[in-house]
């Protein structure tokens, strides 16, 4: 047994500090009364007030949430189908190729994905007249493509653990394959779908590169707005926004892992 001496404790603390001190500083600075980032001007909710009167930031945030919601949902649907086909349809022709192509967006540089999607949308507009211009639609489509890869991986690993015999049992009792999928596979897959959706939501929400390629006028996502603002100098209301987001995400993750932990204990009882 490894002795957890002072050194190990110190290294663990150092690692955690390395990860969280920047975020902590940003959160503290969001309550800074001063306009200058580097000077502490007393505790204040001033920037939160500023934030809620900054329509540009709020609109961008709302747009990002909608984009993330749509593309995560789309990604979960497509990713689940892809994951299901890859685990349950046996060794069909082209399976390896398909598995590779589903996972490829994970390693594809975002710049390339963004550029190729932009070219695709331009060409499509020329040939079939859709999508007209660059808008929220193009961003959602683009985000769904790379988020799908993550969902497919999550679903695939969950399905691989699950016993295919349950679906056979449902079919044996008279359920058509699609019905067996809805009644048996989907409920058991639910935890994977939820985590896949959350993962896709997060990925979409903080994507900057691909969005920059495929967004049009009037459809700037939050990361794009923050990035362009920061280039002109850090404004403290961005800190306030970031603090709210971290609080929100932190709460979600806490609730989710607490419930997942409870479910796990329930299964261990079985």
């Amino acid at each position, binding site marked *: 047994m490894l002795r957890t001496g002072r050194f190990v404790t110190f290294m663990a603390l150092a690692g955690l500090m390395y990860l969280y001190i920047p975020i902590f500083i940003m959160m503290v600075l969001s309550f800074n009364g001063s306009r200058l980032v580097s000077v502490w001007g007393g505790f204040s909710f001033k920037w939160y007030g500023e934030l809620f009167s900054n329509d540009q930031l709020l609109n961008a945030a709302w747009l990002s949430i909608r984009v993330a919601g749509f593309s995560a949902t789309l990604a979960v649907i497509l990713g689940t189908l892809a994951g299901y086909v890859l685990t349950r349809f046996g060794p069909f022709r082209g399976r390896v190729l398909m598995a590779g192509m589903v996972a490829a967006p994970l390693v594809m540089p975002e710049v390339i994905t963004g550029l190729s999607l932009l070219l695709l949308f331009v060409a499509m507009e020329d040939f079939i007249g859709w999508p007209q211009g660059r808008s929220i639609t193009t961003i959602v489509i683009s985000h769904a493509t790379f988020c799908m890869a993550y969902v497919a991986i999550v679903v695939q690993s969950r399905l691989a653990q699950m*016993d295919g*015999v*349950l679906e*056979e*049992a*449902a*079919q*044996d*009792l*008279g*359920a*058509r*394959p699609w*019905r067996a999928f809805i*009644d*048996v596979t989907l*409920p*058991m897959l639910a935890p994977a779908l939820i985590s896949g959706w959350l993962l896709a939501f997060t990925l979409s929400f903080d994507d900057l590169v691909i969005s920059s390629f495929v967004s049009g006028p009037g459809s700037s996502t939050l990361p794009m707005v923050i990035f362009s603002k920061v280039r002109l100098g850090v404004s403290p209301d961005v800190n306030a926004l970031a603090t709210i987001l971290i609080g929100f995400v932190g709460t979600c993750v806490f609730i989710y892992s607490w419930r997942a932990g409870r479910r796990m204990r*329930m*299964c261990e*009882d*079985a």
Partner: protein
Amino acid sequence: MEHRSAGAGPGGSAAEPFVRIEVITKRFGATVAVNRIDLDIQRSELFCLLGGSGSGKSTLLRMLAGFEQPSEGRILIDGQDMTGVPAYERPVNMMFQSYALFPHMSVSDNVAYGLRRGGVARAEIRKRVADMLDIVKMGDYAQRKPHQLSGGQRQRVALARALVKQPKLLLLDEPLGALDKKLREETQFELMKIQSQLGTTFIVVTHDQDEAMTLASRMGVMQDGRLVQVGGPRDLYEFPVNRFVARFIGAVNLFEAVLIEDEPGHARLRCAETGGVFHVSHGVSGTLGQTMHLALRPEKINLIRDKPDGEENVAPGVIDEIAYLGNLSVYQVRLDTGRLIHVTLPNLDRHEGEAFEAGNRVFCSWGPASAVVLPA
């Protein structure tokens, strides 16, 4: 051992067989999992498919259920050709080896699932589920989830779920495999009771010969994708067609012997392994001088201290080891020829005075109807 008589045994009736497996073969790539199996099963029969792992018994069962399609041949159930009929449209239900209960549904929802898919009216579903749970004695557990049940209880729920649709044919894949020994024995008899109560045709797949012997009215032994022998438990035990079947079902001593006399009523074979002559009370269709295989079950041999009259069906030896099993004892006897054979004797008396001990010099003797010459 008493066995149930086969309700409609082979050739017992001229009626159309209920399940007809017509020369089916199943290949997975280059391997042949099921090799030209031809088998008829009668209505209300409890048929056991017995075989080791990789013998093709599970593949055959999956073809009956509709999860695999035969590469050649066809299956008829109740006169209906099942070729191309998917699992969800077959009048067949299966009880899976791992039970495959839906973990997110309660016991009663599990049992009701098949009826719901069949479009049965709500009130009738409730009644039939309750009745079926009563039959398997799980009425008090209707609202439990599968993970709150013991192995034996899960097995009952799986059985109820498979039977509630009143299938024409029920397939059971190692139904008792996951239960401990004591529970198995109780469940075996319950399974038989339920089967005769409902009159459903059962096909049971198992690798456990005891399970097959107890349950089956008829059984088939599979080896390397082929059906080697079909018959009642007694036929298979007393008249195995080859060494594989003889060894697979029960313990056996196998000998090689040369045919020296062959008459319609009896035959004599000289055996180098026992150093004597076997006299069997049945004719053998062979040529004199031919080497044949003989099977002699351990319980059909007697041990005596004094040399018996006659030179046939006897072999002298020394007791090597004794395993005391309570109701009987297994003796390992080293014959003077060096060959080890097994003998089981019932422990009739409690007093120890007469008991054999290791090292005792004994004569193994058996009757003319004890040994059987194997056709292959």
